[in-house]
């Protein structure tokens, strides 16, 4: 679907920049930070950080919540989960299927 392609492009473009990945690392280490807190860790202008955060938000990798006057930034892992499901999950299936089979055998109704 065209829209999916669009989402995926935004996602990988957002990830294709070291400063943006650093922002994600910072949020991964400690979620819910303000712009000022994030600026302390990056050697660039406040405006630069804002633009990077906007791109991350457009790709849905960052979610924001307003709390009073503050805007807090959170790492949103849902799009990364989708990458996992698209390319990685199937390689885990044989192992998971073995577990599921075991569970079914063990949980067979008694009598």
């Amino acid at each position: 679907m065209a829209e999916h392609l669009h989402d995926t492009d935004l996602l990988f473009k957002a990830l294709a920049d070291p400063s943006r990945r650093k922002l994600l690392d910072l949020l991964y280490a400690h979620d819910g930070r303000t712009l000022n807190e994030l600026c302390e860790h990056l050697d660039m202008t406040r405006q630069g950080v804002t633009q990077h955060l906007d791109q991350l938000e457009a790709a849905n990798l960052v979610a924001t919540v307003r709390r009073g006057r503050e805007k807090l930034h959170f790492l949103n892992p849902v799009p990364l989960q989708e990458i996992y499901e698209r390319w990685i999950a199937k390689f885990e299936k044989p192992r998971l299927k073995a577990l599921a089979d075991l569970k079914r055998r063990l949980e067979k109704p008694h009598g």
Partner: protein
Amino acid sequence: MARSTFVYVAYIRTTPEKLWLALTDGEFMRAYWFGMHCESRWTAGSAWTLVSGDGQVYDAGEILEADPPRRLVIRWQHQNKPELKAEGDSLCTMELEPTGTAVKLSITHTIERDPSKLIMAVSGGWPKVISNLKSLLETGSAVLQEPYPKESAPREGRG
């Protein structure tokens, strides 16, 4: 006071009404929530529980706000593991906002302590649940089924 929060956002190509149904209908939930489902009358003040496939109550609480199909607030306390139960009540807010052809689903889970074992525990599960829900609503099948897929469903129509 210290607080732990996570926020998860997914854009799901569906309607707010269908998404609300998916978030509140037990049968629908089982299909994307790894066999778990919630039980509640889904009105403010009514009891709420999250029940596993074998009938164990994992979490319990109360619906604090219910404004279908826009907003749901749940007082949420873990029941199964003593160290998580000891942390007391958390607050789970689900917001549904139509945006063009999709609905923005925001799930915010907060507890008034930091660090929180409960928030650590639930935050690992939410992305899988939300991602599964999105896939189920958009393609008609969940990616990761309960307990785990018996057959691999082809993911056609993706990007």
